[in-house]
C-alpha cells in the first residue's frame, strides 16, 4: 500500500554477537507478543482448514447474513457461507501466497546480491538497472497489469510481487558483500584455499543473516497488505477465499451486517502490525548490539562515578609567567563529567579536574586521546554531546558559576566571552550555507549588529586571519575552500565577538604540516592583539612549548601535573609527563621546542 518501502536496516559489524541480538529481541515484550500472535496465525494456516467446522465454500441460501450462533462461531456471509470456516481457509491461502512472494524475493534477491557483490563487473550494472526499473512503477499497478496476462490466481500475482520486492534483498546483500569482500579475513580465507562458494556461505551470509530476517518480516507484511488490496479490488478468483476477498464481501454488506467486515480486517491489520513491530524490534536489537560493541571500546577509560582524585602535582609560578598573566578568569574546581547509559547507569570520563586560567595567558591542556581534554573543554563551553552532563564541581567564569545555574549560565558567555575553535575544519562549517552567512548570523545575534555592519566586520576579520580574497571567500560555500582556509574562517568566527577566553581544540591536528605553523602563528598574534586567554587543547608538547605560558597534563580524566611551561620542561615531576616529553623527542614536528639541556629526565 502506501508503505512499499522496507525499513532501512543497519548492516551489523561482523563482530556483532548473534547471541546478544537474540537475547535483546526476546527481552522485548512487544516482540514476544508479535511472535506469539504470528505463531497462532501460522498454526491456523497449517491446521485451520482441517479443523474448520463447515466447508467455507458451501453457500446456503437460507443462511445469508445469518448472525453468529447455532453452530456458527462468526455467522454467515452475503452468500450464506460460514465465515469462521471460510476465514480459516483464507488464512491458509493468504499466508502461503505471501510466503510465495517472500521466497521468490529471497531467492532472487539474495543470489543476485551475492553474485553482484562478490564478482562485481557487469552483473552489478545489470542488477542496478533492473532495480531502478522495478522501483519506477507502483507495485499495485504492475500487478493489475499482470492480471490481464496471468489471470486471477493470487499465487501468480505473488510470484510477480516477489520479483518486484527482490531488489530490497538484493541491495541489502550487495551492500554487505561489498563491505565484507574488502575485509582481511575474506582474503585470508581465500589464501587458505577456501572456494568462493564456501567463503560466501560461511563468512558473508553470517553477516547478513540478521538484516535479512528483519527485511523478510517487513516484506511479508507488505506482501500481505498488497495481496489483500488486490483481492479487495475483486480481481481474484472467487473460488479461492483470501483475507482480501473476504473483506470485499464484508464491505459489500456493510450496511446490513457490519460485523462481517471486522474479522478479515483484524486478520489483515493485526498480522501486518505484528510483522512490522517484530521487524522493528529486531532492528532495534541489532542496532543496540552493534552500538554496544562500539561503546565498549569508546568508554574504555570510563570509571564508576566518584573515583578518587589524587592530588595534582603543582609547580610554583615563575616571575616570567606571573608577569605575563593577570587576574583569574576561569576557575574550574573538581569538575566531573559523565555520560548517561541506556541502562540508567552513568559512566564518568572526567574525574575531578582543577584548572585555573588567568587573563591573557595561553594555557596548554595536553594528554593522549581519550584522556578527557576535549570533554573538559566542552564542559566549559556547556556543549557536551547528547547524554553527557556535568556531574559535579564548579566552573566559575569572571566570578559567576556557570554550572550551578541552568544552561542560562553558559548562554550568557558562550559566543560572547568564551569562543571555540574546533579541530576538524570542514565538518564544522554547515555545507548548505555560505561562509559569509555563517559569520554574519552569530555577529548579528551576539553583538546586535545590522546586516551591513556585520558583513563589514566579517570581511575585515577574514582579511585579518590572512584570507587573500575576503569577498570571494565570504560568498563561497564550504566545499569551495581548502581545509587551511576553512580553519582560518573558523578562527575568524571564533574571535569575531572579541572573546576573553578562546578554547582551541587541537586546532592544527587536521591540517597539512606546512599550514600548521601558520595557523599557530595566527593564533599567537590574535591572542596578543585581542588580549584573550587561550585554552589550547593538544597532544603535542611541541605546540605547547611554542605557544603556551602554563600547561596542565591530563591523563585518564585527571590533571596529573600543572605549572609554567619552563618549569615543567625543566623538571617534570610525574612519570606520565616525562614519558610525553620523551615521546616528543622522537617526533619530527615542524616546531621544535626550545629544550633546556638536561631538563628532560
Amino acid at each position, binding site marked *: 500500500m502506501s508503505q512499499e518501502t522496507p525499513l532501512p536496516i543497519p548492516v551489523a559489524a561482523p563482530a556483532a554477537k548473534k547471541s546478544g541480538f537474540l537475547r535483546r529481541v526476546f527481552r522485548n515484550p512487544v516482540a514476544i507478543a508479535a511472535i506469539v500472535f504470528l505463531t497462532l496465525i501460522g498454526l491456523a494456516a497449517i491446521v485451520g482448514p482441517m479443523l474448520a467446522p463447515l466447508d467455507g465454500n458451501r453457500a446456503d441460501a437460507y443462511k445469508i447474513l445469518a448472525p453468529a450462533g447455532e453452530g456458527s462461531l462468526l455467522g454467515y456471509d452475503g452468500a450464506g457461507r460460514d465465515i469462521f470456516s471460510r476465514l480459516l481457509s483464507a488464512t491458509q491461502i493468504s499466508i502461503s501466497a505471501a510466503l510465495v512472494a517472500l521466497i521468490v524475493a529471497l531467492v532472487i534477491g539474495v543470489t543476485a546480491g551475492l553474485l553482484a557483490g562478490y564478482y562485481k563487473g557487469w552483473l552489478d550494472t545489470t542488477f542496478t538497472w533492473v532495480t531502478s526499473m522495478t522501483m519506477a512503477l507502483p507495485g499495485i499497478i504492475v500487478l493489475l497489469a499482470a492480471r490481464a496476462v496471468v489471470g486471477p490466481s493470487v499465487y501468480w500475482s505473488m510470484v510477480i510481487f516477489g520479483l518486484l520486492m527482490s531488489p530490497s534483498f538484493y541491495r541489502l546483500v550487495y551492500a554487505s558483500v561489498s563491505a565484507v569482500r574488502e575485509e582481511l579475513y575474506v582474503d585470508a580465507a581465500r589464501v587458505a584455499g577456501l572456494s568462493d562458494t564456501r567463503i560466501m556461505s560461511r563468512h558473508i551470509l553470517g553477516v547478513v543473516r540478521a538484516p535479512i530476517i528483519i527485511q523478510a518480516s517487513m516484506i511479508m507484511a507488505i506482501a500481505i497488505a498488497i495481496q489483500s488490496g488486490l483481492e479487495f479490488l475483486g480481481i481474484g478468483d472467487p473460488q479461492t477465499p483470501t483475507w482480501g476477498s473476504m473483506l470485499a464481501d464484508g464491505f459489500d454488506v456493510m450496511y446490513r451486517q457490519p460485523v462481517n*467486515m471486522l474479522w478479515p480486517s483484524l486478520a489483515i491489520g493485526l498480522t501486518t502490525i505484528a510483522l512490522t513491530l517484530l521487524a522493528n524490534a529486531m532492528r532495534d536489537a541489532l542496532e543496540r548490539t552493534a552500538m554496544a560493541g562500539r561503546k565498549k571500546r569508546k568508554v574504555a577509560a570510563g570509571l564508576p562515578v566518584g573515583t578518587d582524585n589524587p592530588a595534582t602535582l603543582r609547580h610554583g609560578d615563575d616571575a616570567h609567567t606571573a608577569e605575563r598573566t593577570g587576574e583569574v578568569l576561569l576557575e574550574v574546581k573538581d569538575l566531573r563529567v559523565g555520560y548517561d547509559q541506556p541502562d540508567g547507569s552513568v559512566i564518568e570520563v572526567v574525574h575531578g579536574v582543577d584548572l585555573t586560567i588567568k587573563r591573557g595567558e595561553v594555557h596548554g591542556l595536553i594528554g593522549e586521546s581519550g584522556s578527557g581534554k576535549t570533554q573538559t573543554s566542552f564542559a566549559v563551553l556547556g556543549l557536551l554531546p547528547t547524554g553527557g552532563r556535568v556531574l559535579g564541581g564548579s566552573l566559575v567564569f569572571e566570578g559567576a558559576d556557570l554550572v550551578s545555574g541552568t544552561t542560562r549560565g553558559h548562554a550568557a558567555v558562550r559566543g560572547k566571552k568564551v569562543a571555540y575553535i574546533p579541530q576538524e575544519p570542514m565538518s564544522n562549517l554547515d555545507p548548505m550555507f555560505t561562509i559569509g552567512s*555563517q559569520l554574519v548570523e552569530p555577529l548579528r545575534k551576539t553583538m546586535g549588529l545590522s546586516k551591513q555592519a556585520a558583513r563589514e566586520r566579517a570581511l575585515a576579520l577574514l582579511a585579518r586571519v590572512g584570507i587573500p580574497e575576503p569577498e570571494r571567500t565570504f560568498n563561497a560555500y564550504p566545499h569551495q575552500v581548502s581545509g587551511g582556509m576553512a580553519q582560518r574562517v573558523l578562527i575568524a568566527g571564533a574571535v569575531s565577538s572579541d572573546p576573553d577566553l578562546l578554547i582551541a581544540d587541537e586546532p592544527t591536528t587536521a591540517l597539512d604540516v606546512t599550514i600548521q605553523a601558520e595557523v599557530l602563528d595566527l593564533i599567537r598574534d590574535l591572542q596578543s592583539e585581542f588580549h584573550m586567554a587561550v585554552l589550547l587543547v593538544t597532544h603535542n608538547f611541541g605546540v605547547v612549548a611554542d605557544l603556551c605560558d602554563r600547561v596542565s597534563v591530563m591523563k585518564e580524566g585527571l590533571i596529573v601535573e600543572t605549572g609554567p611551561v619552563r618549569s615543567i620542561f625543566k623538571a617534570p615531576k610525574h612519570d606520565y609527563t616525562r614519558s610525553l616529553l620523551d615521546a616528543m623527542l622522537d617526533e619530527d614536528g615542524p616546531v621544535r621546542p626550545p629544550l633546556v639541556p638536561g631538563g628532560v629526565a
Partner: protein
Amino acid sequence: MLRFIGRRLIAGVVLVFAITTLAFLLLYLGGGDIARRLVGQTATQEQVAAKAAELGLDRPIWEQYAAWLGNALTGDLGRSWFSGQLVIDGVTSRLMVTLSLVIGATLITALVAVFLGVLAALSGGWVDRGIQFLTVLGMAIPGFLIAVGLVFVFAIELGWFNATGFTPLKEGFAPWARSVALPITALAIGGSSSVAQQIRGSVVDALQKDYVRTLRSRGLATSSVVFKHVLRNSLSPALAVLNVQFIGMLGGAVIVEQVFQMPGLGQLSVGATTQGDIPMVMGLVVATAVIVIVVNLAIDIAQGLLNPKVRLG
C-alpha cells in the same frame, strides 16, 4: 546544473521506454491467444482469425510494437477494445481524480511528517517513544484498511456527509474538499508515518554534527540552529523518502479510490484488467510510468538546487 538535469532527463526517457517495451511484450506475448480470449471459447476458428485481423494481432509482434510506439509518440495510445473510447481520454479523465488525491496526500504528509519528526527528535523521552510507536503502527496498517475503517465510522456509525463518491473541483472547492478529505486521510497516514520516521532520524543525525556545536559555540540558540541549519540539512533525505512515498501512494490510491467509489485510475484499471482490454492497460502503464519519472526528475532537480555542491559544481 544543466548537464545534471540533462543526464537525469535522458535517464528518465530511457526508463519510460524500457518499461513500456517490456510491458508491451509481456502483455501481447504473455497472455496466449488474445483473440481467442476476446471472442470466447465457443467461437469458430474463422471468428478468432477475423478478430485477430481486426485488431492487428495477426501481424508480427515487432510490427505491432513499432506501430504502437509510433502512435504513442504522437499522443495516440489507441482505442479500448471494448468501449471504443480513446485510451488517452479514458486515462487522463481518471488520472485527474487519482492525482488530486495523491498530491493532496503528499502535501499533508509533508506537513504532518515535519511536525511529528522534528517534535520527536527534539523532545526525546516519552514523546519521542510515543511518536515512534504511532508511526510504526501507521506504517504497518494498509491504507485501504484505514479507508474501510473511515467509511465505516463516518458513513455508518455517524451517518455524516456522503462518505463515498467524488465531486469534481469545478463544482466548488468545499464540496470537492469534502469528497476527498477521507481518502486523502487514509493515504496520508501511512505516508506521514514513514516520512516522519525519516525526518526524526535525519534531525537526530544533524544535531550531532560538528557544525551545530560550532554554531552554538558562537552564541546562537539551539532552537534557531535547529530551525535554520538542522532542518535545511535534513531536507534532502526527507525529499527522497517523500518521493518514494508519492509512488507508494499512487499505488495505494488505486485501492483507496475503490473503497470510496471514486472514478479514478482504480476503477479504470480493474475494469480493463479483468476484461483483458490490453490497450487500456498499456495506457495505464504509460501514464503511471510517466508520472513517476516526472516526479523523480522534479525531486532530483530540487535536490540539485538545494545542494550547493551540485548547483555550483
